[in-house]
């Protein structure tokens, strides 16, 4: 082979070539077995060189097994394996799913048009569709709550004491036996969407870890809390138009949240868990990532969203990180927070309800529903997190089956505060 091919081989291996060049080189390799053999020789020779210059590291006994266990416990692993083992679809299944998807898409569009229509004529904001669950009263909007929402200086709370969220503050169950016919379709739609988004969420988590996606903070003037204003938030809030999860489309530099595991149930199918909104976190500070596990989140009107704020561990002020994915509203779930530990380490996490129009204000200073962890552990094999603690006077135990793609080095993370008015 010639000089140019040798150079291109090295650039290809060292990822020093542009997309177009890479594609052309790949095509050349695919078309020319001799070139492919030359390329293999270069690949193996350079790898051998690297292995010589960088000698093998002695691995502690059991460390490789732990690494393999961590990988096989990752959501992407199960997802891929399920995909590989999935039996071949029959022809009718290939046709049925597109039809079902089209119907669901049509329903979505119809609902969206109704929502836009209601907004256009100045009607009452339409709340998100909920899946009726056993033991859960129908979700209604509390007019009192709405009046508070309209108050510029106050936002509604996630606290159990708030009447706004009391009806939603029920642990989701799988019993849909009492569903009305009209809502069964909606439930199916919701579940299908949930499944797709969960799979996508897993990919996004792994992708975020692989890319080490770092996102920035928008710092907020602490005095703006007292003044009932928040400087600099408008632009950021306006950028929070949701693609799939309500996550920011433009990721700022410094920190991000990513949904992981749409449904995370407390231990015992929720029977022994508190039915009020609460949350706890587990962080791997060195890895720059942590899980915030949220339980019994309320459903908010479509013109509002749940915002996640972080206060740095070295003090300072709260910074808006992003939006809790809407898929988690009215249920429990986890979000992954990634950050650059060299820039900021979260010291406290705050969840608030904010308006989407960018003129929201922070809720008042009283805090409630603050979970205190007394013990926490990560199963090295399954990577399931188990914690116990208290929520006020009420003890609770819970686990997170969302998976831990971070290695089994998590420690109890910063306190998660759900603020009320």
């Amino acid at each position, binding site marked *: 082979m010639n*000089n140019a091919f*040798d*150079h291109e081989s*090295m650039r290809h*291996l*060292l*990822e*020093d070539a542009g997309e177009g060049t890479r594609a052309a080189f790949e095509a050349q*390799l695919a078309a020319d*077995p001799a070139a*492919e*053999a030359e*390329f*293999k*020789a*270069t*690949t*193996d*020779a*350079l*790898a*051998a*060189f*690297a*292995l*010589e*210059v*960088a*000698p*093998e*590291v*002695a*691995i502690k006994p059991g*460390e*490789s*097994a732990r*690494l*393999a266990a*961590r*990988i*096989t416990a*990752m959501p*992407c*692993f199960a997802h*891929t*394996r399920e995909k*590989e*083992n999935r039996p071949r679809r029959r022809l009718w299944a290939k046709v049925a799913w597109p039809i079902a998807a089209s119907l669901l898409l049509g329903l979505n569009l119809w609902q969206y048009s109704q929502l836009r229509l209601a907004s256009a004529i100045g009607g009452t904001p339409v709340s998100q569709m909920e899946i009726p669950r056993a033991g859960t009263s129908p979700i209604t909007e509390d007019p009192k709550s709405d009046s508070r929402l309209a108050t510029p200086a106050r936002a509604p709370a996630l606290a159990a004491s708030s009447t706004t969220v009391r009806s939603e503050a029920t642990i989701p169950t799988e019993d849909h036996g009492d569903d009305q016919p009209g809502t069964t379709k909606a439930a199916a739609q919701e579940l299908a969407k949930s499944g797709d988004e969960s799979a996508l969420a897993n990919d996004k988590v*792994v992708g975020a*870890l*692989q*890319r*080490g996606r*770092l996102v920035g903070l928008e710092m907020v003037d602490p005095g703006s809390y007292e003044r009932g204003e928040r400087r600099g938030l408008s632009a950021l809030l306006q950028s929070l138009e949701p693609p799939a999860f309500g996550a920011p489309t433009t990721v700022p530099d410094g920190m991000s949240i990513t949904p992981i595991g749409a449904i995370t149930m407390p231990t015992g199918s929720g029977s022994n868990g508190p039915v009020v909104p609460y949350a706890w976190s587990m962080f791997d500070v*060195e*890895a720059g990532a942590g899980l915030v596990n949220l339980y019994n989140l309320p459903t908010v009107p479509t013109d509002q969203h749940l915002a996640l704020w972080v206060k740095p561990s070295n003090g300072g002020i709260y910074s808006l990180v992003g939006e809790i994915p809407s898929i988690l509203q009215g249920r429990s779930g986890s979000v992954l927070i990634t950050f650059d530990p*060299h820039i900021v380490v979260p010291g406290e996490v705050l969840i608030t309800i904010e308006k989407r129009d960018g003129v929201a204000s922070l809720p008042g200073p009283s805090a409630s529903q603050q979970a205190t962890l007394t013990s926490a552990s990560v199963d090295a094999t399954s990577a399931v997190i188990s914690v116990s603690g208290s929520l006020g006077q009420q003890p609770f135990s819970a686990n997170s089956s969302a998976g831990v793609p971070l*290695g089994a080095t998590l420690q109890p993370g910063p306190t998660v505060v759900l603020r009320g008015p």
Partner: protein
Amino acid sequence: MPPLPEQAAPPASTGALRVLPGLERATAFEPEALARHRELVARMGAGDAEALRLLVTELHGRVQGVVQRILRDPETACETVQDVFVKAWRGAGGYRPERGEVISWLVFMARNGAIDRVRRRARQRELLEELQDEGEVVVSPPAYLLFEQREEVARGLAELAPSQRRALELSFFEGCTQNEVASAMKIPVGNVKNHLRRGMLKLRELFSAHE
């Protein structure tokens, strides 16, 4: 092909050599190992988790070595190594043995993943500044010379000219582009290209001579 130096008899415990003279620890390139790795990756492609565990067990230390050489931080290296094997699992179905051995595939995934991490943390700029501060081209003692027991390896790699070796190291382990290598070594880009190509051809000679 230039004559290779006389190879010292390997220690009884290390077995046959293949890649470079005296490369006792190059078991990753032994034919049996190569075949075993290919089989494991094929099984991974079919969804066999046990194959992944076996591959990790066998090659963890080697991948860790490459990553650690680049990142210089064992803790961060562990995360990258995990990423490498995750990628291997996800990409096992697309692995093409005609493009390189499994160990080579992993080595380049490790290298490129580690370099990405370095670049993200802006260490690249710091490195270049350090290198430029060095003034004249400084060819540091090769890492392998630190291991006296690997003198045979040194003889093999010593056939690389210092400038060739330096250019290869900067490209591979520091993630430098050819322009950056030229800047760091204070030589024209054309010379860098020559060093890289000749160095690579030398490596291939050494490699193929012992296949």
